């Protein structure tokens, strides 16, 4: 970029008329150009300072974002853990209330009447069937 153009941009900058694009051009010029005319040195310092501040702000924004994301994730994990704990406690309570069950041919039965019926049937199975055996068992003194 020619010095005349830079001067024009600087004039516009001082008048507050520069666009973002023009300001970027100025910043770029002063960053890349090591040796500038003595009258532009204050501008170099100014743009360098401006750039540092801009970077600080970006970094700060990134940190805010990082902290924000971390806080959100922590909150999500805590809410998730809370919900999971609640779900597990509910499931465990359900297991406790439904701890009576039967499994017939691999199928789970929770109907109380049917469970009792099956339990009775099993008792009948282990009971002696014929009278002779029944009487013998009935007379056993444990």
């Amino acid at each position, binding site marked *: 970029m020619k010095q005349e153009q830079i001067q024009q941009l600087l004039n516009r900058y001082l008048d507050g008329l520069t666009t973002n694009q023009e300001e970027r051009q100025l910043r770029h010029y002063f960053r890349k150009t090591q040796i500038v005319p003595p009258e532009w040195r204050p501008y170099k310092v100014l743009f360098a300072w401006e750039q540092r501040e801009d970077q600080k702000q970006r970094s700060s924004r990134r940190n805010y974002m990082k902290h924000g994301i971390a806080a959100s994730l922590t909150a999500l994990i805590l809410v998730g853990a809370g919900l999971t704990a609640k779900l597990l406690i509910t499931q465990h309570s359900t297991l406790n209330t439904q701890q009576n069950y039967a*499994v017939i041919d691999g199928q789970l039965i929770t109907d109380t009447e049917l469970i009792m019926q*099956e*339990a009775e049937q099993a008792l009948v199975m282990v009971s002696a069937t014929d009278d002779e055996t029944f009487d013998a068992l009935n007379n056993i003194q444990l």
Partner: protein
Amino acid sequence: MMKRTIVFMFILLTFSTMASAQEGLQIASAFSRFGHERGCKMVEMHDARLRGYKLKTYQSLTYRTQGDAIAPLLDEDRRKAQKIREVVNDGHVTSGYYIMPPTDNGLNRYILYTQKEDKSGTVIYIEGTLQPDDILKLCYQRKN
């Protein structure tokens, strides 16, 4: 991490509850191995009342063909039984019941079973405050 810990604790709690039911008994594996198989019926009740008797745990398994696999398990528990009563028919044990050592918290434990030559049978595990006499009445009361 916390979720994983809660899940682990839940699994531990579930397994410890399951394990305490027939602690040290081989028939526990009969219920877990065959309870969900086709041709089998399994019942599990806790704090239930059956024929007027309050049972802390009642578990039964009725099977059609698993007799050969269950017999050695019963035999193992037979060795630990405090008292054994068996009905022998033609040289074969057809039914019996074992009084097992009580649980740590003093509950009595009983195993009752019947087995047929066709490898079908029924195994019942009872845990509670019932006395041996109550078991006789519970299982062998005549139905009129």
